[in-house]
């Protein structure tokens, strides 16, 4: 992709001695859909607010388009934000809301009118000019908030959990809407969410964060299929994370049984974490499986059955379209390609990301 538009260099931020961001480095390319993903308190919103100019970092620099904007106040930055709670101006109608930024920039009346029409069309709310924000549904208000931001033609649109307050169906619709908007506008989106599904659906790049540290940066496929550590594996989707021993290249011992895998370069007889996604486990007859166990629970989930299988002292989470009743003896088989090996956290920094369960 194209050049770096925003660079965060060594950004640290703490509130009342509580470290929220620790020497964070991140760059965002032009025309990219970047999602900052992580649990609440991981520093994702703080990162966004630092980019938006609502917080000052304790240390570090924010570089935008080659210029240092660390000290530049929010109202002088060439980017716009869509807030979690819409933040529409309740005493103004929709047209006045959208025109707010343009009026401040002293644009002509005809220019503003054109822009309002264009923006309302873009968010599929034509004819809403004279409505008041209170009379709109949550989803509509959020569209107006997006319209209000994009009429200013920002280079970057910051979105702080914009779909957080909407119900599931609406949220899914809005996800497609946002992808469409991004493609039509051709601007950079920086999106903050704790919803992994949202992140996987929309992003070009996902930045997984936890406790002020970036855990992994990558495409949705990379994050899902090749999580770099147990935190990422656990946070993105369901997974079986098992303490194992890498015997040698392409062979790993999981719960006493030897599994073939495709990873190399970990050394011999090294303790590692193994991630196996529940949909990658194949349930077969006990003789056929690499290890065998007993089904302990069965839930119908619509698309698939969710089963727990107790085998070699570990409760395996399995998603399968084939149903095995509780109490049945089954074998577990995993394609070598679907076994993801991760190094155990070694340094102190990485220790912080250990999942507490």
């Amino acid at each position, binding site marked *: 992709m194209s050049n770096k538009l925003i660079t965060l260099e060594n950004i640290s931020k703490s509130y009342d001695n509580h470290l929220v961001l620790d020497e964070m480095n991140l760059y965002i390319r032009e025309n990219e859909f970047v999602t900052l993903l992580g649990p609440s308190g991981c520093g994702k919103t703080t990162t966004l607010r630092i980019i938006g100019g609502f917080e000052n970092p304790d240390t570090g620099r924010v570089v935008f388009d080659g210029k240092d904007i660390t000290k530049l106040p929010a109202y002088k930055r060439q980017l716009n934000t869509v807030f979690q709670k819409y933040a529409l*101006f*309740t005493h103004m109608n929709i047209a006045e809301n959208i025109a707010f930024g343009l009026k401040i920039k002293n644009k002509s009346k005809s220019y503003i009118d054109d822009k309002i029409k264009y923006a309302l069309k873009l968010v599929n709310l034509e004819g809403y000019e004279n409505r008041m924000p209170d009379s709109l549904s949550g989803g509509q208000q959020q569209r107006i908030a997006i319209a209000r931001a994009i009429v200013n033609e920002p280079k970057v649109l910051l979105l702080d959990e914009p779909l957080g307050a909407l119900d599931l169906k609406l949220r899914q619709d809005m996800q497609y809407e946002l992808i469409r908007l991004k493609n039509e506008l051709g601007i950079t989106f920086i999106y903050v969410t704790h919803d992994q599904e949202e992140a996987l659906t929309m992003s070009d790049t996902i930045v997984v964060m936890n406790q002020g540290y970036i855990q992994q940066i990558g495409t949705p496929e990379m994050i899902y299929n090749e999580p770099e550590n147990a935190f990422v594996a656990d946070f993105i989707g369901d997974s079986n994370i098992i303490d194992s021993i890498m015997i040698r290249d392409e062979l790993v011992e999981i719960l006493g049984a030897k599994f073939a895998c495709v990873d190399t370069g970990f050394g011999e007889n090294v303790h590692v974490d193994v991630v196996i996604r529940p949909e990658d486990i194949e349930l077969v007859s006990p003789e056929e499986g690499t290890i065998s166990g007993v089904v302990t629970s069965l839930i119908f989930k619509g698309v698939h059955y969710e089963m727990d299988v107790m085998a070699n002292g570990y409760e395996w989470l399995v998603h399968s379209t084939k149903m095995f009743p509780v109490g049945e003896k089954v074998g577990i088989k995993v394609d070598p390609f679907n076994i993801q090996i991760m190094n155990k956290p070694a340094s102190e920094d990485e220790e912080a990301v250990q999942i507490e369960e």
Partner: protein
Amino acid sequence: MANVLKRIYIALIFIFLYAPMLVLIVLSFNKSKSRAKWGGFTFQWYTKLLSDSSIMEALVTTLMLAVLSALISTFIGTIAAIAITSLKKGARTLMMGITNIPMLNAEIVTGISLMLLFIFFNVKFGFTTILLAHITFNIPYVILSVMPRIKQLNPSAYEAAMDLGASPFKAFFKVVFPDILPGVFSGLLMAFTMSIDDFIITHFTKGAGVDTLSTKIYSQVRKGIDPKMYALSSLIFVTVLVLLILINILPGSGKKAKEK
């Protein structure tokens, strides 16, 4: 049956509350000077009232005091309310407590302490001292009526305005202020009403020669009640009543306008 009882109960409450005012208003139209005899309907006490220059002077003083003290205390109170909301929780509770004390404090105590304060700093008693006193006791009422409005604000609205290019100053006046305006306005009316209404504090902080309506009435009544005073009291009552009704319907009417 229970319904009828409820109505009777309510009616009784209102009779006890408003009977004195009603008597006063009726007497203000009584031709006879006697308080026990109805001598026919008349406006003469009202016309006499309006031609009494010392009372008219007191009326002007009262209104000037009310307007000035309401405006100044609204200005100070609104700023204070904004500042208090942005405090941390402990400090905020403390500040609100301090704000509430003057309202709960006996007026006579407030009056006397203000008087002592003015003497201590050698301030000459007169219009200024009453004005200062009125501003002082009005501020808490303004804070109290503005505060809920500020709490209802979407904290992101201010940031959104700045995000769209408004300087902090512009963001406040274009986005925050219109939203808290109903609270500011009812605070203003409340302060105005409290100022017109006040007797005790005014009594202790006024100098010789300056009188508000309430202190004027007090000094007249000591000499013997003139029916002009009934007329004056009736007028004050009606004015305050109208203001109070305004205060109470205003926030609601604001909402209705929005729904259009």
